[in-house]
């Protein structure tokens, strides 16, 4: 298997960076004003990836469960903060809610996948945990971000509808149900869409990577299928959890909508 794998030298990386010269050249010719941004983005990308490569090599070598889980929780924290960062409105416990949702969803699917499906021993083996976790967090982050944004936005836009239902005797859950459903649908559309065209329009990155590393396509596809199930499940769990927590933060037990708890980010 490893026979077809090409180890990349530093020279080859430099050679690849010449492609960015095309982008920068285009920007100069067409006066797009993107030269600075392309340069910064390229440098950041290279720097971050080299750094994460070193870090992962180091964690792999340590093979200590506390360090591994520590790095995993750190990754989840960054994902939770990023998910909230894109929203236009906030409430006081939003970061905590995002963190609980993303960590809960990721932990559940990761444990299920690593010890249940793949039966890896020990289940925290970094070679499997980190690649899977990275993909799970990336997708859950998007789901949570979209769900939060949509739910908070529609609560303020459709406030009259919610309060009409409340004043007709609806419980807060009945009054918000339509908005909760709408937020979850919105947040899961990207996941559903990509599943629909998987393999036709897009060849997923992980599968492509495995094929490049010499795994046969038939074999790589099996991994990809498992991966998609894991990702979809984590995104659904994380989004649902974060919307339910937001619902609990923005209504009280007296079935009152507490819109004053929502602060618009300026």
């Amino acid at each position, binding site marked *: 298997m490893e026979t077809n794998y090409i180890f990349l030298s530093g020279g080859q990386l430099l050679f690849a960076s010449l492609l960015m010269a095309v982008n920068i050249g285009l920007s100069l010719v067409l006066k797009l004003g993107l030269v600075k941004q392309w340069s910064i983005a390229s440098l950041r990308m290279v720097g971050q990836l080299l750094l994460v490569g070193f870090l992962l090599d180091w964690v792999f070598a340590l093979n200590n469960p506390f360090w591994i889980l520590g790095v995993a929780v750190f990754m989840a924290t960054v994902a939770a903060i990023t998910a909230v960062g894109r929203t236009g409105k906030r409430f006081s416990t939003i970061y905590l809610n995002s963190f609980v949702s993303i960590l809960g969803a990721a932990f559940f699917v990761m444990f299920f996948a690593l010890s249940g499906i793949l039966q890896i021993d020990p289940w925290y083996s970094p070679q499997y945990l980190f690649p899977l976790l990275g993909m799970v967090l990336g997708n859950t982050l998007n789901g949570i971000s979209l769900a939060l944004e949509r739910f908070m936005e529609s609560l303020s836009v459709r406030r009259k509808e919610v309060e009409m239902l409340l004043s007709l*005797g609806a419980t807060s859950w009945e009054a918000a149900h339509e908005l909760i459903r709408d937020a979850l649908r919105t947040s899961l559309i990207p996941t559903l869409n990509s599943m629909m065209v998987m393999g036709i329009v897009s060849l997923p990155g992980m599968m492509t990577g495995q094929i490049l590393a010499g795994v046969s396509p038939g074999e790589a596809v099996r991994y990809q299928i498992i991966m998609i199930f894991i990702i979809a499940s984590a995104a659904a769990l994380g989004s649902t959890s974060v919307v339910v927590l937001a619902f609990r933060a923005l209504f009280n037990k007296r079935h009152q909508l507490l819109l004053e708890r929502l602060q618009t980010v300026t």
Partner: protein
Amino acid sequence: MLHSTDISTGRTSQKSEPLLSVDNLCRQVSANWIWNNISFDLAAGDRLALTGSSGSGKSLLLRTLSGLDVIASGPSGENGSIRFAGKSLHEWEMPQYRSKVCYIQQHPTFFDETVEANLKRVFRLKAHQNIKYDREKILSRLQQLAPPNTASDSSGTNDYDGFLERPAKELSGGEAQIAALLRVLQLEPQVLLLDEPTSSMDVELTKLFEKLLEKWQREIPENQTNSPNSTPQRAWIWVSHNPEQLRRMCSKTFCLDRENGN
């Protein structure tokens, strides 16, 4: 909080206790106190006009009475309270309370479906599963709102033919106010909180609407048959900028400007 309400239950006998009793309500928006220490009673059968200049917080008071807003504590930390039918608001399940003390927004909201679907939707709520949609009753109430000249028309048609089948989002302002009232009356409320209920209606329709409400107030609720005295038990609090209407429809007045002299 609960202790003090227990004491007041002991003080007043069950019969003389008002239907709705408001004690020491305060309301702050941003840094301004809109109203302070508001107290009044609404007895069964009362028709109370709620007046006050624009911005005096009439709608805010109706929202608070319907339990949509949290009762805030006053400037010196005192707690306001609302009691209804012998129980403090805290003892009521809000869905039950809100189906007895019904708030009608000035500009009502509907789902994007027919008027009838909107009326029926109410019965999907858990709180109303024991009552059923009654089309006949709705139609007879609509009949009361038909202008008299068309009622005499031999074809038997009136302005509200097909009203139930119309998309609720396309109703005119006055028609929407009618639909909102019909929707709420289905719940057999005891108190109506009316926020300028006829503001989008012409003079003719306003009169018919008032008549409908007067008739509703005199009706004996289905679940209280053979009531010994036939005095009306239903009550309302009516907000309007039309003093003529308030004179016609209300027998008492509570003015927010006067109560809030500071």
